[in-house]
């Protein structure tokens, strides 16, 4: 049974490569909300502060909040990219991440090489990668362009390929940064259908979005983040109304 459990979780980003001294002066002058100096006298951004929530089987959760509220950081933490500085985190179930569909793409390699590479990134065997290649090739509909370097693609073609690669999975926990949409009218309809299927098949969806229509349509629960804290958590309509 897929499950996400987060208790008192905090993430802090150290700011190393800027003039920490001048910044510190400014921090002393104002009373900042999220920038502070930690015990080791480093300037850190408190990206997520003291989050606690649990997401159970079948829940469709929307993360909402302004830019910089911590939505993507939370998604990356759930995906296992960032290790929290405090708190506990457990995610049960196979994680599929649609945080950045372009990640790991090699522009110099051909479309097909990129698909095989993606298979390796996901730890697939040779046979599984070949199946992935076939499936992606069919869905992206790039025909002979699949054997041409990706950097020569039009932006629409590149999006088609990355969309097809990113959505060719069957995760139990789906993490998504914004609803993906891609391509021309014909592809858009197919992309919508495929993403809908992916979301329906996943046991848990966690999606960051600014589009309230999409949130209302797909999600059952919303968590509103503000400056790295949870300010509201509940059924979508309640949170959106509040």
């Amino acid at each position, binding site marked *: 049974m897929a499950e996400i459990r987060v208790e008192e979780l905090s993430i802090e980003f150290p700011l190393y490569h800027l003039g920490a001294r001048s910044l510190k002066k400014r921090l002393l002058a104002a009373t900042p909300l999220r920038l502070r100096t930690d015990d080791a006298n480093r300037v850190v951004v408190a990206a997520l502060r003291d989050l606690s929530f649990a997401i159970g089987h079948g829940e469709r959760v929307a993360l909402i909040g302004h830019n910089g509220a911590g939505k993507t950081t939370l998604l990356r933490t759930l995906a296992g990219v960032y290790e929290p500085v405090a*708190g506990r*985190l457990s995610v049960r*179930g196979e994680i599929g991440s649609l945080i950045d569909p372009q990640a790991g793409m090699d522009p110099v390699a051909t479309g097909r090489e990129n698909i095989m590479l993606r298979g390796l990134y996901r730890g697939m065997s040779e046979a599984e990668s070949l199946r992935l290649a076939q499936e992606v090739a069919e869905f992206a509909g790039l025909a002979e362009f699949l054997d041409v370097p990706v950097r020569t693609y039009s932006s629409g073609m590149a999006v088609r390929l990355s969309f097809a690669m990113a959505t060719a999975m069957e995760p139990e926990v789906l993490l998504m940064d914004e609803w993906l949409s891609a391509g021309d009218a014909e592809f858009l309809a197919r992309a919508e259908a495929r993403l809908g299927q992916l979301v329906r098949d996943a046991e848990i969806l966690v999606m960051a979005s600014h589009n309230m229509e999409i949130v209302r349509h797909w999600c059952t629960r919303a968590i509103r983040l503000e400056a790295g804290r949870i300010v509201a958590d509940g059924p979508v309509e309640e949170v959106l109304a509040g």
Partner: protein
Amino acid sequence: MSATAPMLEFDAARPRRRERAIADLLGGLVRWRLAWALARSDVTNRYRGSVLGPLWLTLSTGVMILGLGLLYSTLFRMDVREYLPWLAVSLIVWNLIAAVIGDACVALTSAEAVIRQVPLPHSVHGLRATVRNLLIAAHNLPLIAVVMAIFGVAPRLGIVLLPAGLFLVALNSFAASMLLGMVCARFRDIGPIVGSVMQLAFFMTPVIWKPELLGALAPLQLLNPFYTVMETVRAPLIEAAVDWRVWASALGWTAAHCALAFAFFVRFRGRVAFWV
């Protein structure tokens, strides 16, 4: 779903760092095919569109060997037939070591985009850097064969130790990629410092000059990790004797290097995603 569903668990109060570091290393080894594919595309991408491709390296190393061989055999008053094959092996091995160390500094920062997006074992990037440099160095192998054929140097029995020497270099390369990769990600000034240290090391280490020229001071070179690790590859290729002191020193340095890298990795693995 069954009880064996994959599980991501983290508790900041009990970080279990050593366990995670070992899991990361094993995870990297399991994904050797990814490291291999990435390393191979690194090499082909670097030379995509060029006619000779990585053979340019072979060519430039060849020219360098010829030039330095003729010059220094005159300067050191040595027989060119003896000196040049030795220099060829020497320079090729040194180039490998220098490339490994230089590349180690960017092993993690160059994979920044992947590290911050995809939860992968960090050791994959160390393996990638190691394989990349070994692949590039392999392009120089024909050069050694050519030089040996021209000067009629036959490989001796010591050559059976060559795989062991190459393994030591690879192990050091991996350790350096993780250690320097992390340190250089955190402190961006370390990269240029390493560059100048390597330049100094090139002249201080018997690369273009033979260790015997030091006379009574020659044993001091046993303390030089660059010399002894290099010698574990060079000696099997070109020299007759197997010096156990060289191997002892090389093994000792490698063990210390790996231990230091592992200790660092255990302590700071979780911070890498924030550093790059």
